[in-house]
């Protein structure tokens, strides 16, 4: 059952050193504030999982929080490389990082299989692609009905999923709108979960009967952090800060300017700082 707690308490209780953690979001609703709290609490040896690791993983990796990254596309979309990730992977700074690389289809299917409680996911994929040569977790199986050869990957099994959503109600149910990515699947394939939200409302009010809602009893902790997805965005609240994504390229290119940015904006601040970005669209 979800409990309403502070962000520090949520991370303290649900993210442990060595955990396999996904902070998901397909460029939308990325839980930046929660990621910053993980940095402040100096978690180590994490396996970070995400289809599209972007700036928040660059920050975590640059601070030495992760031993391994599992991903399908690693970069700053439309801008370029993640310099902190590349520095860790290519030069071992501040510590070496291992990778497990997949395609988007494989990761999406793995999350779904995890949520479904299956041991593996199968799909028509990786045909003629070289990743299956270098990633031992990509196997081939034969359809027992048609004999078609299909790809198989292990189901996602997370210790903790961290996601951001627009709203929670007083019972701790959480509603997602817009590009919903794999957030639902990530939460349902995790032992523990943290959801940060823009606001807590008495009632979700008028909505489609098919609205994407995770019931409170599937979540570990719900935390109100207005603006907590910035510089990504929250549909209906604030837009993606594309200018910041571009600015990050210069900040992260250099080790010293990166550390200075982290000192000022992460270590020297708390989740309240995100409120400056919170804004509900009229």
């Amino acid at each position, binding site marked *: 059952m979800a409990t309403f707690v502070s962000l520090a308490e949520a991370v303290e209780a649900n993210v442990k050193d060595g955990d396999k953690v996904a902070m998901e979001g*397909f*460029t*939308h609703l990325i839980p930046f504030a929660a990621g910053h709290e993980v940095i402040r609490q100096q978690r180590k040896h994490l396996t970070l999982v995400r*289809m*599209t690791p972007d700036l928040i993983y660059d920050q975590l990796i640059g601070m030495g929080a992760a031993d391994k990254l599992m*991903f*399908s*596309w*690693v*970069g700053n*979309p*439309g*801008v370029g*490389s993640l310099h902190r*990730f*590349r520095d860790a*992977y*290519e030069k071992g700074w501040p510590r070496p990082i291992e990778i497990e*690389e997949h*395609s*988007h*289809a494989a990761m*999406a*299917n793995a*999350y*779904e299989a995890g949520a479904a409680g299956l041991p593996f996911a199968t*799909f*028509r*994929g*990786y*045909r*003629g*692609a*070289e*990743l299956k040569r*270098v990633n031992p977790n990509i196997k081939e199986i034969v359809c027992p009905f048609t004999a*078609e*050869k299909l790809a198989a990957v292990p189901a996602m099994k997370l210790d903790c999923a961290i996601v951001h959503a627009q709203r929670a109600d007083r019972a701790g149910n959480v509603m997602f709108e*817009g*590009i*919903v*990515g*794999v957030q*639902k*699947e990530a939460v349902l394939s995790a032992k523990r979960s943290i959801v940060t939200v823009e606001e807590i409302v008495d009632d979700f009010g008028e909505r489609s009967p098919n609205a*994407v809602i995770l019931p409170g009893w599937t979540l570990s902790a719900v935390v109100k952090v207005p603006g907590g997805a910035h510089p990504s*965005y929250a*549909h209906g609240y604030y*837009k*993606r800060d*594309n*200018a910041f*994504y*571009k600015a990050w390229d210069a900040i992260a290119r250099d080790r010293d300017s990166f550390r200075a940015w982290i000192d000022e904006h992460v270590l020297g601040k708390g989740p309240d700082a995100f409120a400056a970005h919170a804004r509900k669209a009229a």
Partner: protein
Amino acid sequence: MNYSPTEMMTIAAARALSDNDVCFVGIGTPSAACNLARLTHAPRIVLIYESGTLETKPNVLPLSIGDGELSETALTTVSVPEMFRYWLQGGRITTGFLGGAQIDRFANLNTTVVGPYAKPNVRLPGGGGAPEIATSCGRIFIVMAQSKRSFVDKLDFVTSLGFGKGGDDRAKHGVNTQGPTKVFTDLCVLEPDPKSKELMVASLHPGVAREQVVDATGWPIKFAAKVGETPLPTAKELQVLRELYARTEAAHGEAA
């Protein structure tokens, strides 16, 4: 009217699309080409971005694959697993767009690493949706600038399948979609030879000499028996494309 080689590349790709296409669109030039087609000759083209947006009609080009603009202007937005399972794997896409850091003569693509996989000289973003886009879409259009660094004799890594080793190799991988039927560059349009599947120059952009294409290709490039000339960009095409970029830059906070 003056135009840049990149504008020619984008316009050539846009022209190859029609109202009958259901496109799986990537960020960058493919997104510009698809929206240019939608805003000119193919208003009913269906654009799908892998973030889950079906039938989206963005007013500005997204910087990322999941900008809010895509969901706000879409008919509906589905989850990412649904996108890859029902829509891509389910065979609903006629045309997928891909690009890469490297391409070889059989239109296989590398977006993974430069150098050896385990110890790369440059770690690139990786395949994302490409391995399955390359095999699940009815056909593939590739858009990328042409140079010896990108058009290489041998890929450092095969991220996504084109025609493999050529001939019927694609089918040997269990893939029965058409694969890359056109490659649009800033110099020319390439198409695979019907039998060998090796890319050949089908048309040169206006003012481009054969030697330029030869010099920008890392293998001995072949020319079709009859090489055409890509029609010049029209004033309308350039105007719509430039307005699209101007709106995009304003929206992304880039002061001109």
